[in-house]
């Protein structure tokens, strides 16, 4: 592999790597706007000009780093010469002469490429004093579709958004119109930017020209706390950054993972956190008075009283117990539920499978990834010991819809396990159990009907792992503390299991993961702390990803 020296730091790169990427490897950021690793190289913004010396001979002009490819040894690149600094300064001036000074009301402020580079490379005064700035009257807030708003005044014509729709989404809704200083981006009159990945153009817009309808004026970005998380919108498991302020989630942004979602995510996924705000929250443990049949007075109690009640019920049922799992459980939670099912000799431990809308994320140099199931972790739940219809278990159907007798004790692991949790008939059927226990974050009809309802954290409030459609286990982190008396399910289950046997006190998602990794062959060799940021592929014998999904799909359409 050829070696290249950038500002005296030498790195080895694959032949054909451009100088921006080589710089990143060497720890040197070459400023750029139009370049994006997943879009065609156009060399338009001219911000990445660098000085290149080839075997001691300096190239006559500054070169754009994005379109300069290291092919063999002998290149020495400098990004810190007076000439380069002068060029960067000149370019910043060109960008800014026609850019509005509306940072105080611009959503991009704080994460804006113009702010960052003008601070680093620009000058603090303007020589553009006699002429009017170019404006696009009537094009300051154009909804390009449901999710993206364009302010043409702020655009720096880098064309990333256009290339995204052409090259990644493949829909080509956006175009470059007019010529010269009058160029504009936009959709054809009357057409919308409506592809499922549309909001990605907001992520890649280096300035505030494209903003997200959902996030507009929602929060100044410097107040946001960010944690790596996983989208729960489907089984793809797009890596996201959960951005929140004081427990109020403001947005998801895709987090780069070449193995899963690359730089992208779908608009549907971006909206999924809103469920946590719209759906009423179960905030403290609730126990109904003894002998109730669903109409007895409800008592808000402490955790230990509630768990005692559950423990008593499970023991006294003598095996007439069923567990209704959920694809929304973390792998660790599912593992503990399975343990609990073992200890109470439960007859069933079924995970329902809901098909959702189909989402496809394009990836670089590999086939796109498609999610069809509505839950992010059906696979993890199964690996951890629960079973689904896909494993030949028809327990879910029996429990939810069948005529068979409902067990004496029914433990629903997630009050929001799927659509059925919100269906009156299903709730009525499940209520026929003598004792109904419901875990969950949502105060769903099912939770309202429960004898014991246990408030547990949603995925922004807890640590855990999900196993995605391609059997990749991915870790996410707690972004903020749960509200009220809510506790992460792992802790709650630890306490409950401790009532049956020793060794379960003080468990955490990490400790449970390490324990299950030692026990389950699929997770062999993995550990919580050493799980790579991009996740780990599981050893699942005979896991035929696409066949499985196809089966599910054909069942659904049948």
């Amino acid at each position, binding site marked *: 592999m050829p070696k290249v020296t950038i500002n005296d730091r030498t790195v080895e790169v694959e032949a054909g790597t451009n100088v921006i990427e080589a710089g990143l490897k060497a720890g040197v950021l070459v400023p750029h706007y139009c370049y994006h690793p997943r879009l065609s190289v156009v060399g338009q913004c001219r*911000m990445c000009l660098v000085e290149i010396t080839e075997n001691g001979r300096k190239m006559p002009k500054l070169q754009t780093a994005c379109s300069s490819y290291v092919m063999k040894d002998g290149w020495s690149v400098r990004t810190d010469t007076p000439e380069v600094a002068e060029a960067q300064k000149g370019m910043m001036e060109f960008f800014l002469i026609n850019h509005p000074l509306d940072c105080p009301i611009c959503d991009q402020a704080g994460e804006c490429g113009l702010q960052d580079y003008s601070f680093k490379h620009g000058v603090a005064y303007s020589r553009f004093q006699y002429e009017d700035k170019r404006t696009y009257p009537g094009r300051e807030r154009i909804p390009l579709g449901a999710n993206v708003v364009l302010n043409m005044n702020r655009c720096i014509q880098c064309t990333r958004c256009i290339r995204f729709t052409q090259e990644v989404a493949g829909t080509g809704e956006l175009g470059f119109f007019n*010529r010269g*200083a009058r160029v504009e981006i936009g959709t054809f009159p009357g057409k919308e930017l409506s592809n499922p990945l549309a909001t990605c153009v907001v992520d890649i817009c280096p300035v505030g020209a494209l903003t997200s309808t959902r996030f507009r004026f929602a929060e100044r970005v410097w107040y946001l706390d960010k944690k790596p998380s996983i989208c729960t919108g489907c089984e793809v498991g797009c890596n996201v950054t959960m951005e929140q302020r004081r427990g109020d989630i403001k947005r998801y942004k895709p987090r780069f993972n070449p193995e899963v979602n690359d730089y992208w995510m779908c608009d549907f996924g971006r909206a999924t956190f809103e469920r946590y705000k719209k759906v009423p929250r179960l905030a403290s443990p609730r126990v109904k008075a003894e002998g109730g049949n669903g109409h007895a007075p409800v008592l808000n109690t402490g955790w230990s009283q509630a768990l005692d009640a559950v423990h008593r019920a499970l023991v006294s049922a003598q095996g007439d117990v069923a567990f209704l799992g959920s694809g929304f459980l973390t792998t660790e939670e599912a593992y503990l539920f399975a343990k609990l099912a073992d200890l109470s000799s439960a007859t069933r431990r079924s995970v329902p499978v809901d098909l959702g809308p189909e989402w496809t994320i394009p990836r670089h140099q590999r086939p796109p990834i498609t999610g069809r199931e509505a839950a992010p972790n059906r696979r993890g739940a199964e690996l951890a010991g629960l079973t689904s219809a896909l494993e030949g278990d028809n327990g879910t159907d029996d429990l939810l819809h069948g005529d068979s007798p409902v067990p004496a004790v029914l433990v629903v692991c997630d009050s929001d396990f799927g659509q059925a949790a919100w269906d009156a008939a299903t709730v009525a059927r499940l209520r026929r159990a003598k004792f109904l226990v419901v875990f969950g974050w949502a105060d769903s009809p099912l939770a309202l009907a429960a004898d014991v309802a246990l408030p547990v954290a949603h995925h922004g409030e807890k640590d855990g792992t999900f196993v995605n459609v391609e059997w990749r286990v991915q870790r996410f982190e707690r972004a903020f503390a749960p509200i009220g008396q809510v506790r992460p399910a792992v802790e709650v289950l630890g306490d409950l299991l401790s009532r049956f046997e020793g060794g379960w006190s003080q468990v955490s998602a990490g400790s449970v993961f390490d324990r299950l990794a030692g026990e389950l062959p699929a997770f062999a060799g993995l550990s919580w702390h050493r799980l790579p940021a991009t996740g780990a592929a599981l050893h699942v014998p005979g896991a035929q990803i696409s066949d499985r999904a196809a089966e599910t799909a054909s069942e659904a359409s049948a």
Partner: protein
Amino acid sequence: MAAFEPVLTKNVGKPEALTLQGYRQLGGYEGLTKALTMEPDAIIDEVKKSGLRGRGGAGFPAGMKWSFIPKGKDKPKYLVCNADESEPGTFKDRLLMENDPHQLIEGCAICCFAVSANTCYIYIRGEYVKSALVLEQAIKEAYENGILGDSVMGSGFKLNMYIHRGAGAYICGEETGMLESLEGKRGQPRVKPPFPAVVGAFGAPTVINNVETLCNVPHILTRGADWFKSIGTDERNTGPKLYAISGHVERPGTYEHPIGITFREMLDAAGGMWRGKQLKAFIPGGASAPILKPDQIDIKMDFDTVAKAGSMLGSAAVIVMDETTCMVRSVARLAKFFNHESCGQCTPCREGTNWMELVLKRLEHGEGTERDAQMLLSICKNIGGQSLCALGDAAIGPVKSLVDRFPEEIEQHVRERKCPFPQPRYFENGA
């Protein structure tokens, strides 16, 4: 210098040259006939030896350009003839196309044979309707007589030739802008490398030559590289050259001279200054060439001498300005042109050409400041060498030379708070 016989324009004014038969009677298609008997590499060598440099503006050696095309016949290759003549002051290619279309067809055919290209597109600017019609007719006749088509003059070499009309964009004269336009896109120049010889039209190796360049080729083949080299200043500046002269001269027009004639000789040939006025300035190579002053009147009009004088021969479009001309106003007009024609994709050109036009207009209207001259130079510096294609460099040529060579005119505009030159009236009583 011995009396010079026109070469490229010898058929101009002879209507019979428009027909295939007439053109042949005037000695046409001899070059192609000869070429078809030669090895392709030998043709390239002959063109290389002739020293023919591109007549479109950059002056790149044509034979060298051809030799960059990968050998072999397995993959498609193209010739794109650049007939997008749009540089203000330039009108020489139109003359060649309208008066001697077969000369161009012959030149294209020889080039295609030399580089094994089976398809030639003549990219002609959309406004040149007459040129397109004349060429279409000539191409049609060439097809009908077996000069184009499945077997060029019975040689077995297949060649299709098509006219592709532009739609009004100067930037499509830039070779990669032209390729984009040919492919049905906005005419935005591409990042280079790769160069068109490697990745050109439709991703295939492509030669792009100007009309006048290709028109020289048949003559090089019939009369030999040595004859070609005998015309001109030195071995780097050879052959006949069309000079398009316009502005304040008595007889504007296209004149064919040996390359390297002096500007004074050219001016004399065009009847001298218009209405007997004094020369104030001249642009030697089209709108993008820096302006020269009368002290350069004896400059040899070849590629290297003009470059040495701080300008460029470009397309050899000479614009002459007399003593009544306001230089600020003239340069402001050129700045308006470049702003209008910038494609808008790259930052320095998009923003810089616009800014320069605004500043120059302000100066012309007497609203300039003392800082403007230095600021213009600084804008030029920030565009120069940093734009994606050559249009940025083209746009700063006239502006830079205005500030460098006519500073007193800018100062006068600023001092007097108005344009010191009266608005010229060219027509008495509006007649």
